[in-house]
């Protein structure tokens, strides 16, 4: 573990595998549910699905890359900042739009879990785009 991993308290790289395997759980549950191989309440599947996706995204975001250096460190901080700004802006805009246009069909996906998932997705998009920009010669 290098100093940067210690600074950010990042998890070792093998946690990526754990995170990807966690994503498979809701997928498998959904398949089993659709094929009627198991009989579980749909709400329970949604609950398990949302939470495992959230946990796996969190694990992916706090797991170190194979080469974790100071530039990656800086990019992570930038991406986290951007995703927090995105989360706040999204939350403010959706609450205002719900207040102004209550009959417009307020989006049901503004729950905490969905906002967090969107923030994580935004974080990965920003991180990936910065990585790509740094790769260009």
């Amino acid at each position, binding site marked *: 573990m290098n100093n940067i991993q210690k600074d950010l308290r990042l998890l070792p790289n093998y946690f990526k595998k754990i995170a990807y395997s966690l994503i498979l759980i809701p997928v498998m549950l959904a398949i089993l549910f659709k094929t009627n191989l198991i009989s579980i309440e749909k709400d329970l599947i949604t609950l398990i699905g949302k939470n495992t996706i959230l946990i796996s995204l969190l694990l992916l975001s706090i797991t170190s890359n194979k*080469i974790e250096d*100071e*530039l*990656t460190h800086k990019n992570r901080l930038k991406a986290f900042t951007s995703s927090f700004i995105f989360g706040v802006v999204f939350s403010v805009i959706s609450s205002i739009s719900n207040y102004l246009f209550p009959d417009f069909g307020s989006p049901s996906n503004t729950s905490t879990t969905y906002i967090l998932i969107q923030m994580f997705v935004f974080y990965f998009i920003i991180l990936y785009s910065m990585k790509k920009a*740094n*790769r260009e*010669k």
Partner: protein
Amino acid sequence: MKNRLKIERAIKDLTQEALANEIGVSRQTINSIEKNRYIPSTILALKLSKVFEKNIHDLFELEDDD
């Protein structure tokens, strides 16, 4: 901040990948430093000066707007 990393690397006939491996960073970091998109930390600057056997001032130079 200006730097002579690309020139020194060419003199030593090192690829970005080889230099990155030698100091334990990614190739993207070397590329970003060469492009002046990223200013390295003191530790990294010292590692680079050690690899090129040069004084830090010979590798990095402050500009007026720094």
